[in-house]
């Protein structure tokens, strides 16, 4: 029997089905205010290790979350049982918890009807990718690796989901979303070399497994026998994935309230926040746009607020921080939600141009185990991985051992030398489709490497 796809329409709630389900739940509710959130979908994945598929599987699930409020008392429950008795039990539980909970002085009322723009976050090609299609994509990587006497290990994931939100005040939101990613690590069998390539997109057909495999093989070959160099401050040429690894950390620090409260990089000394102040090189702009076809995201937030295009940093100057509904009201600002999408400005140069213009520097394929060290400066530590090279006189001359950095994307974007053309990257550590991020390769000086690693 041939594998069927799990993404058949019945697995998936249509707008009409979602609306009917939310109405069923709202009719059960007795709270002053009720919000129902439905997330239903499927995730398919195939893992491969040492040139063969190691595991693979599909799962489907639909969850219904109920948020109940009595005055300023609120609580939430989530269940994946959709029969009437279970839904009623979940509503009752949510209301019971809400009545017992202390009052939240910051509680905000649920929203009424909103208008949403359609986002290009859905691709039928991703939704229709089945296990046999995934296995074929894996073979397109493992067969050339085997022929090259190298070992390919990697991961392919495709997700498709429907999201709906409704409140008893008239709000109804519905959207579908897909995501896909493929990441590949090719290693020499004796562990002396490692190369990586990866991609992520809403639309699976935008990902070319064979080309990714070729790239990872080339990286692995070039990375053999790395030499040690002295840690210190170096000019770096960062491939787009490495830039994505670091620049997305700025997006995680955009909370206006933390800034206003004095516990953020975006806190202004003496009080207030850095909106209007220049924080990075004037060539840098950071924008979230859920309607960007290359970095699409859902057109609404978890509380049903319409998502919108937001410029965080424009020509180096902070233009917006993220205000939730409570903080926006308190500070007299517009609600500015975070969105699962980020695009950085770029230039016209190619990666090769950036390398060619570098007298001495380090080329980084990607970073790994990136963890916060000091929130005052968005300082993180982590290491290079799977393709780190020395550039001398405009050419890649040798592979170098991996290096640990202690650095902030803010400092890095102040030390910017040049930028290339932005592309969509797979910048999540675990290879899941993750945050939709479009970034350029960059060249920056004085990047702070603090120690050497023997890891290949």
């Amino acid at each position, binding site marked *: 029997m041939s594998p069927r796809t799990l993404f058949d329409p019945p697995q998936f709630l249509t707008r009409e089905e979602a609306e009917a389900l939310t109405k069923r739940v709202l009719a059960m509710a007795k709270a002053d205010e009720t919000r129902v959130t439905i997330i239903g979908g499927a995730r398919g994945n195939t893992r491969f290790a040492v040139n063969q598929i190691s595991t693979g599987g599909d*799962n489907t699930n639909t969850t219904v979350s109920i948020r109940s409020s009595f005055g300023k008392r609120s609580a939430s429950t989530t269940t*994946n049982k959709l029969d009437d008795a279970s839904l009623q039990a979940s509503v009752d539980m949510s209301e019971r918890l809400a009545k017992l909970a202390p009052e939240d002085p910051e509680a905000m009322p649920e929203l009424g009807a909103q208008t949403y723009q359609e986002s290009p976050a859905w691709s039928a090609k991703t939704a229709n990718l089945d296990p046999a299609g995934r296995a074929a994509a894996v073979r397109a990587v493992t067969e050339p690796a085997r022929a090259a006497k190298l070992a390919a290990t990697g*991961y392919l994931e495709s997700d498709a989901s429907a999201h709906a939100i409704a409140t008893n005040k008239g709000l109804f939101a519905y959207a579908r979303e897909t995501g896909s990613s493929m990441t590949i690590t090719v290693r020499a069998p004796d562990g002396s070399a490692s190369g990586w390539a990866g991609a992520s997109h809403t639309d699976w057909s935008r990902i070319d497994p064979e080309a990714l495999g070729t790239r990872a093989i080339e990286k692995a070959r070039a990375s053999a026998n790395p030499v040690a160099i002295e840690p210190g401050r170096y000019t770096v040429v960062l491939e787009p994935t490495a830039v994505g690894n670091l620049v997305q950390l700025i997006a995680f620090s955009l909370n206006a309230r933390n800034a206003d409260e004095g516990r953020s990089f975006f806190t202004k000394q003496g009080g207030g926040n850095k909106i209007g102040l220049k924080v990075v090189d004037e060539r840098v702009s950071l924008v979230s746009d859920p309607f960007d076809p290359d970095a699409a995201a859902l057109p609404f937030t978890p509380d049903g607020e319409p998502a919108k295009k937001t410029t965080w940093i424009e020509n180096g100057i902070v233009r917006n921080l993220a205000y939730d509904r409570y903080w926006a009201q308190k500070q007299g600002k517009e609600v500015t939600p975070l969105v699962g999408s980020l695009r950085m400005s770029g230039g016209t140069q190619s990666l090769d141009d950036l390398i060619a213009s570098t007298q001495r520097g380090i080329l980084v394929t990607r970073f790994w185990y990136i963890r916060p060290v000091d929130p005052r400066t968005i300082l993180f530590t982590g290491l290079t991985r799977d393709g780190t090279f020395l550039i001398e006189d405009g050419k890649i001359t040798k592979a170098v051992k991996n290096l640990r950095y202690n650095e902030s994307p803010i400092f890095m974007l102040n030390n910017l030398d040049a930028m290339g053309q932005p592309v969509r990257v797979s910048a999540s550590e675990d290879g899941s489709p993750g945050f939709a991020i479009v970034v350029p390769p960059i060249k920056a000086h004085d990047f702070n490497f603090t120690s050497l690693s023997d890891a290949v």
Partner: protein
Amino acid sequence: MTDRREFLKKSAQAAAALAAANAWNATGGVASAFAAVPTRPLEDIPDSTIRELMANALTAAKSGGAGYADVRIGRQRQNFVFTREQQIQNVVDTDSMGCGVRALVDGTWGFSATRVLTADGVAAAAREAVSIAKANRAARDRPVVLAPAPAVPNGTWKSAFTVDPWSISVEEKAALLLKANAEALKVKGVKYIFSGLFFVKEERSYANTEGSVISQTAVRSWPLMQITAISADMSDFQNRGNVAAPMGRGWEYVLERDLAGHAQQWGEEAVAKLTAKPVEVGRYDLVLHPSHLWLTIHESIAHPTELDRAMGYEANYAGTSFVSPPEKMLGQFRYGPEIMNIQGDRSQEGCLGTVGWDDEGVKPEPFLIIKKGIVNEYQTTREQALWLEWWYKKQGKPARSHGCSYAQNWDNVQFQRMPNVSLLPGDKEQSFEDLIAATDRGIAIVGDGSFSIDQQRYNAQFGGQVFHEIKGGKIVGPLKDVAYQMRTPDFWNAMDMIGGKKSYEFGGSFFDGKGQPGQINAVSHGAVPARFRNINVINTGRKA
């Protein structure tokens, strides 16, 4: 590794709490807890029905062509309460139930999971698992073979909790947190508090085609608190967090931790960091408290001795291991000094990784991963144990799984996850204070902070929560901006003193991440205080 993505995901579920939780607490300053929960209809699925459903799934897998199959029907509930300062932020209760089927067809795995718990629903998942295995067969090289394990026809197990957190009212939970917050806010300079209670309850039923049928119940509890001090001119802020270990216990553990009784001290520690001396870069003797050392053990010993990593299976994400290849490591590689014994153990009462049987129906036995400083064992599943057959033969033992198979929930496939991995106490009864008294120039570190390690687990960097400068055997004052960098075998070989039995404590994580798709594992690590000579310390403070 402990998983940042999971933290962000959870935080998104509790969006309001995130602002206070502060995304910097990457180990997972997450959320949840709650309430006197009445019996719900789905709790009443009788055991006999679950057994029938599991039998249906196994029959469907076998008739589809599976040579072996196993099925898990799981229910996972989470409960959390989050607060900040003097107000409640979030009260959440989640419930997820479903069935996952794993089928081995002609030496290749397939997995499928469904929330539809009917005879047809689980049979469809089983057939889907078989067809995925057949699709995967196209890219098979060597067939999967499982090490033998005795069938467990009627296993039941319950973790060590005396008070079910679901029997405690939401008011009581909120009151406990708000009281602790109030205590911390009494300290001058303390401005913000995030606190929370996070509970997990899991019911797991398991069956396989070899005749095992097992049901287990586990409860996990985690009291959370992060205290933020801010300087008057808003030029600096400092946090004290990760104040209590999560454990595989119930409400009684939350009460034992006594957040309110310690909150002022933690608040004072946060404030002291504002004026603490920035550490001078250099080499120091480090005296590491168990509340800190557990994470160093987790990252630099527990992960690199996972056999799938050592064999290259996790190369694309978690990474490989410097403890490789096994034939050059087992019985030969010196990880640390003679006093170093590291044990894997899924039977320790009250620990997060403790189970009756693993997710392949194997009863785990304690095993020494490092014996007198030498690599002695890897962590294994049934698939992996046979990879080390030569080693077991040499020792006159059969090749058997160490019982390290685990899936985070019904909707994910099980694979090798670490047991509780612990540094065993030394023969001499000595304490953290004794180690400090024996140290001339050093730094004592309490609590886990920033952490990062490379993909082969060689080069790591760790921060902490509280840093004390040691001079002439005495603590002379607080330090800040401290992190140490290490090369794993050099670091462990620099360990020259360890505490005794009375100083043994547990730390742990709800969010140990591994695998693709990423799965989390809850795990404890026992440790005694230990001293490490001449370790490289950096200063992480920079000016914005």
